[in-house]
């Protein structure tokens, strides 16, 4: 896994050593909360309403991988209160945070899970929508997960929502990061340099190629942020 430090990898064992782990986990949690609004902005929810929701049944089974502190699940539960929600994350503190939220519908089933390497605790063909946001760019090999997603999605109707960063020129990335929340102003420049490689690992074309190699067709896509793109895909 690439040490992204954007929050997802930061809660993994690669970064959170026993000495400074609690501080890093708190930072990661705070950063996830502050940056949630940046990623899940109006453009994203417009895309979700226009292209994702019409593909779903009334009471969909929805899984969020690398769910962080559960904010996406919380918002989905407001939009789809009958949904059966599941959330998995590598960070125990994230799952504990997600468990404390008040959901509009039934609370999600939550679990600590290394989603890059471990089989998902879900039955074959049981999921209507599986989402993963700002996490897959950290995976050294994304294709085993794409196979696992195919296994758990319902045949024909199941959908995969990939929401992740795509590459922009370095000068643009640095300039944009200096204006965004999530870090103290003095920390923004060094963190932008630190995170540049991970957040800019794949271009939009690379993501299309990854999905195609994983035998997925893209149903819809939209750039909802200057550097983030949502892809709705279905297994071929």
């Amino acid at each position, binding site marked *: 896994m690439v040490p992204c430090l954007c929050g997802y990898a930061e809660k993994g064992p690669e970064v959170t050593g026993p000495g400074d782990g609690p501080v890093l986990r708190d930072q990661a949690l705070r950063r996830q909360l502050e940056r949630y609004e940046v990623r899940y902005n109006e453009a994203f929810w417009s895309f979700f309403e226009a292209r994702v929701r019409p593909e779903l049944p009334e009471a969909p089974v929805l899984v969020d991988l690398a769910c962080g502190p559960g904010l996406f699940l919380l918002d989905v539960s407001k939009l789809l209160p009958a949904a059966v929600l599941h959330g998995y994350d590598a960070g125990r503190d994230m799952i504990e945070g997600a468990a404390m939220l008040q959901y509009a519908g039934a609370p999600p089933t939550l679990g600590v899970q290394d989603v890059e390497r471990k089989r998902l605790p879900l039955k074959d063909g049981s999921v209507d929508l599986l989402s993963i946001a700002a996490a897959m760019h950290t995976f050294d*090999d994304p294709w085993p997960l794409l196979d696992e997603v195919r296994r758990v999605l319902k045949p024909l109707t199941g959908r995969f929502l990939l929401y992740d960063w795509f590459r922009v020129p370095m000068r643009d990335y640095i300039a944009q990061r200096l204006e965004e929340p999530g870090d103290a102003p003095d920390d923004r420049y060094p963190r932008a340099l630190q995170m540049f*490689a991970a957040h*800019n*690992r794949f271009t939009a*074309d*690379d993501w299309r190629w990854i999905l195609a190699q994983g035998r997925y067709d893209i149903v819809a896509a939209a750039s909802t942020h200057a550097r983030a793109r949502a892809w709705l895909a279905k297994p071929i």
Partner: protein
Amino acid sequence: MTTHQELSGGSDEELRDRMLRTHESRFNDSYWAVVSQHVVPRLPPTPSIVDLGCGPGLFLRDASQRIPGAKLYGFDLTPAMVEHARTLEYAGDPPALGALDVLKQSIPLPESSMDAVFMSAVLHLFDDPFMFLRSLRGVLKPTGTFVLYDWVRIALADYLNRPLREAVADPIAERRRQMKLFAAHNRYTAEDWRWVLGEAGFDIVADEAPTAKWFRVFVATPKRARR
């Protein structure tokens, strides 16, 4: 900084041996043609030249043959590389060599003493290239030349499908290794490198890809020192 060894999952000795095996394909006649055209004419008769990240010393050996009279220096993070460089035969005086972590230690050369600084396939590993380039400018003469030879970004499909220099025993393990390397090797586009060099106070006088489209030579000079 993640080292080459950490990225590729090999030992110091394995990396050294791979660099020895692949040296000729990276520093071939096309590469040296760029140096001869754009760097050598900028050098004085007995230039001082340093290779930062010199590896097992083969570039310095070649430089001793191609740039006679040069006073050579070489530093590398990995002692096994430096030890190998000490065993080589050079055309002129052997280079001054040493183990050095350029991110933690200052470059042990006098200020404004180098006519040329060469750096090959190292700078892409640094999270903050600007801090290091400030140190580099410190040892470079105002009239000196910086030769950056490094990876530039290509599409993931092209990267994974490019011909590898060595046979692959386990394709799945190799794909995983290449995906890990992809993040480091494709950190910068050519446009990014130009921006980094410009921000760090360099003018680019040559910019070519002599050996492969994913490896580029940037010949740069400190701003306001162009001859």
